[in-house]
């Protein structure tokens, strides 16, 4: 679920230039002035059409709706039904950078105005793990569920946790989801880094099983490098360099990088990946910066590429302030 529309295919098409994205100007009145942010949002009508129906989702935030819609697409109707029928033990790992900002904004506005009138219905939806709870509620999954807060590369930490649960036999399958929603709180925060860093929203999800679970899968995560941790900009450059060692495993792969199109933000990754002469695509430059959903979108592009013309794809995740990762996806 993304600004490109419904489904993983739409993200791929947008990133390959086959689909034009519309940019929206959002205005916030601040005193006598108006602050304008350019964003690439999810189309509300498309979301409504794609989202499953469930009582839990009536009051849920957009980020929960994005997450559950992506989760259902990743699993497919048959697997959803099997989990709902308790035939499959599912794990859920959902990660964010920002989380439930719309309702947090709304609730805190109410608190500052008059806390005695602040809505008890909104508050629970501000909690970081509300979306994971809704996903579990819809799927009737009573198994393990984690919500992680991380920088954008935390998507791959989430995959590692899923792998651990699968290897330990705690679950039969595991959903890994990342999601973000737009709000002026987020877009104005992005503008502190660069006025040219435009925000986007949506969710990406993948469903993982062990290789032996249900016969051959079409695609697999062949390898990952990371986490390559850092706590400052100098360390970040080294961390990206360490993660970039992945390029040696498949020089013919499609590279799905993390470049945003904003030179100052991209400098380290741009420099380190400069020697790559193969095909590459930069989802964030097309879709906008999706916070915690960024690397999920990158991975979706990689996986869709495997369905199309590529046998192998690399995803480079430089992160923003915590860690770098890289991954090699390939056809089984």
């Amino acid at each position, binding site marked *: 679920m993304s600004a490109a529309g419904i489904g993983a295919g739409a993200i791929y098409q947008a990133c390959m230039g086959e689909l034009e994205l519309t940019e929206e100007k959002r205005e916030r009145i*601040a005193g006598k*002035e108006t602050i304008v942010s350019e964003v690439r949002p999810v189309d509300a009508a498309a979301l409504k059409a794609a989202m499953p129906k469930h009582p839990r989702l009536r009051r849920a935030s957009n980020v929960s709706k994005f997450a559950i819609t992506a989760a259902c697409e990743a699993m497919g109707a048959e697997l959803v039904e099997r989990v709902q029928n308790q035939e499959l033990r599912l794990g859920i790992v959902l990660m964010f950078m920002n989380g439930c900002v719309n309702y947090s904004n709304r*609730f*805190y506005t109410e*608190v*500052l105005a008059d*806390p005695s009138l*602040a809505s*008890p219905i909104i*508050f*629970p939806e*501000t*909690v*970081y*793990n*509300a979306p*994971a*709870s*809704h996903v*579990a*509620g819809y799927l009737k*999954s009573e*198994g*393990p*569920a*984690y*919500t*992680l*807060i*991380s*920088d954008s590369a*935390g998507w791959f*930490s989430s*995959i590692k946790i*899923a*792998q*651990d649960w699968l290897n*330990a036999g705690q679950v039969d399958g595991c959903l890994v989801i990342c999601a973000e929603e737009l709000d002026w*709180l987020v877009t*104005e*925060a992005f503008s*502190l880094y660069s006025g040219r860093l435009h925000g986007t929203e949506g969710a990406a999800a*993948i*469903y993982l*099983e*062990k290789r032996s679970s249900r016969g*051959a*899968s*079409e*695609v*697999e*995560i062949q*390898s990952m490098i990371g*986490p390559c*941790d850092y*706590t400052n900009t100098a360390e970040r450059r080294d961390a990206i360099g360490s993660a970039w060692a992945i390029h040696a495993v498949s020089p013919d792969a499609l590279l799905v990088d993390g470049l945003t199109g904003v030179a100052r933000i991209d400098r380290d990754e741009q420099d380190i990946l400069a020697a790559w002469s193969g095909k590459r695509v930069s989802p964030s430059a097309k879709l906008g910066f999706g916070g915690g959903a960024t690397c999920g979108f990158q991975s979706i592009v990689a*996986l869709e590429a495997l369905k199309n013309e590529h046998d192998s794809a690399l995803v480079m995740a430089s992160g923003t*302030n*915590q*860690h770098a990762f890289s991954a090699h996806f390939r056809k089984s």
Partner: protein
Amino acid sequence: MSSAPEQAPVYQRVFVTGMGMVSPMGNDAQAHINSMRKGETHFREIDFFDVSRQRVVTAGVADLPQYRSRYAISERAYNRLDRGSRLLLYATQKAIQDARMTAASDIPNNTPFVIGTSAAAMPLGEDYFKAETTEPFSRKGQLTRIEYYQPQKSMGSIQQALGFRGQTQIISNACASGANAIGHAFHLVKTGQHQIALAGGYDALAQMVFAGFDALQALSKSGIPRPFDVNRDGLAIGEGAAMLVLESEASMNARGAIPLAEICGYGMATDLHHLTQPHPEGKAAVKSMSAACQDAAIQPSEIQYINSHGTGTPLNDVAEANAICEWAGDHAKDIMVSSTKSAMGHLLGAAGAIESAVCLLALQGQFVPASLNIRDVDPACQFDLIQEPRDAAVDTVLTNSFGFGGCNASLIFRSPR
């Protein structure tokens, strides 16, 4: 999609070799022991955000430790951290010291630094919000607030301050976060992926969260929670941090470290009943306790004491009581149960961590802390509800943490053998 890496797990025993804690009870283990032995409560009026229009004005407030010159970051850098991260920094430093470790030489690079938090740096988010709405064109301090609002940034600063480089993982499973963090780190060591892990939780009081619980009318009007009392009327929020050093047996022996306890079981389950209310029979709680026992390869009859989630809300306590009785069966009457939230409040994302530390203190001191302020015991409590601190032989203990969204987690600790 297939996940390629498939490694046969090599299980190893995991011990706690250090702990650090800061809570409304005090800033070290001895202060906690003294307070629990005396059966003291620690609630006072909040004075660092406006509570004048709230229904409830008190909470369990921690004494925030001052900047320490031994930190390898400047006081200016320290001041960028939110209140909760400062609490966590202090607890982490204490845990490393308690484990007799030198951060630089004893903590390998890439050691998991697994942290649970519910609200993270919410106070910085609140400051950012207020500045954006009152002075939207003044950017003074806003980038710093946004940077440190992201808890992973602060976790990096904590590592810098203490001189180690870890793999930060932040689990935000509401009020089960701290227990999930410790349980997750436990499994990273148990399965041989790491030899050492630092794990714990933190949360500081934040206006939005406090107002949220007040809006839900989940806070005790008197400000004094009475978990498991038949007339209980809600919880009290608290704040604090606790950190444990977890080590494999091999690592512990190689260092000559002294074990505080063995961590031997972790279970989790999701309660699907409602976003904020547990299933009345505590079905997920039964599952998480059973899963922890299975992980530890023990029976409920081997548990002598449960540090319960015991918030003091009408719905939680009866659900947990029912769950304990179902899970333990005939043995329930022999299990000592108490809620230390009655004394320090509900530390939210830190609750599972501080209550794990309480369990370790109980094992070390051979006593069990009490559920305070009880007048009439809820009839659902068909176990040995501890109402006064008691000296007792305890060898194996369990702690429960249940959160919004149905996150249930249970941990089992036992005396080192």
